[in-house]
């Protein structure tokens, strides 16, 4: 297995995420990516009218640096660390997605129809992306964290609210995946 060019199995990816958690904790920081969105609101001046954003965002600049690094890592990995193959997707899922009009499972990293530049000229796709993003931004802040802050950091710290949040992630995710997506796509 070539770890530079081939997709990683779960037993490489999972422990690697724990290494990121380790590095952040030992840098006196927390692993939680959704806080960035709040920091960006505060940077843009939302604190003048809304107390939730009235804090010294400069203290959280490190989090934005991590996000910039994440984008750089995405650029590196997607352009220079791939042989173009992706991990196999279960055949039932491929067929089901095809019947919903979504192509590329098991061949492309992302469904091109939604995530490549052509999506900008499809109003329906734009609305779905905007709706999804809004739910992600609203929900993570309401819940007080996302997959990194609650599922990884919070569960590792045996936090009951994090377990409740993860159960919520799956209630919402299963509702969308099984009942809403087939109507929306």
């Amino acid at each position, binding site marked *: 297995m070539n770890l530079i060019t081939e997709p990683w199995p779960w037993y490489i990816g*999972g422990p690697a995420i724990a290494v990121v958690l380790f590095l952040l904790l030992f840098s006196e920081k927390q692993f939680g990516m959704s806080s960035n969105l709040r920091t960006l609101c505060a940077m843009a001046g939302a604190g003048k009218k809304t107390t939730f954003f009235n804090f010294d965002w400069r203290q959280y600049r490190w989090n934005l640096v991590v996000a910039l690094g994440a984008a750089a*890592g995405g650029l590196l990995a997607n352009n220079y660390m791939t042989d173009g193959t992706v991990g196999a997707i279960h055949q039932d899922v491929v067929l089901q997605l095809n019947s919903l009009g979504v192509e590329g499972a098991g061949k492309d990293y992302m469904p091109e129809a939604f995530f490549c530049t052509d999506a900008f000229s499809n109003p329906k796709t734009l609305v779905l992306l905007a*709706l999804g993003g809004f739910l992600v931004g609203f929900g993570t802040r309401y*819940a007080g964290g996302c997959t990194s802050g609650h599922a990884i950091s919070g569960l590792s710290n*045996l936090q009951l609210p994090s377990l409740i949040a993860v159960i*919520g992630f799956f209630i919402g995710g299963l509702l969308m995946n099984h009942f809403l997506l087939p109507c929306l796509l």
Partner: protein
Amino acid sequence: MKRVLLYFSIGILFGIIMIKSEAASWFRIYEMFQFKSFHMYGIIGAAVALGLVVTQAIKRFKLRSFFGEEIQIPSKAKLVKAPLFGGIIFGLGWALTGACPGPIYVLIGAGYFPVLIVLASAILGTYCYGVLKPRLPH
């Protein structure tokens, strides 16, 4: 400056992991919610299992950071409704776009530019939460 480079490097590592492990892949998230693959459960489970060891070791042995300070790990606010309702709302968005907040940045860097729309509306969503916060059940 040294610390900025450290945070940037941790970010790069995170970005590479998200792409290579396919945790940022819409298809993988779809497959996870269909319970058709162990992949995503393995990733999250292994990360939590090792994270648990790291976190509990830090707390039990009062480990010190790279900079020599005792590591503080804040607790989450003891709420029930907020993580449940907020979690459900996030879950709906996660299954729709396939993107958690971390992978949003990773995917934009990787060149999936429509994710910029997800980022913009996620910022708007966070802003609306901040405005509505006093009226929501927590």
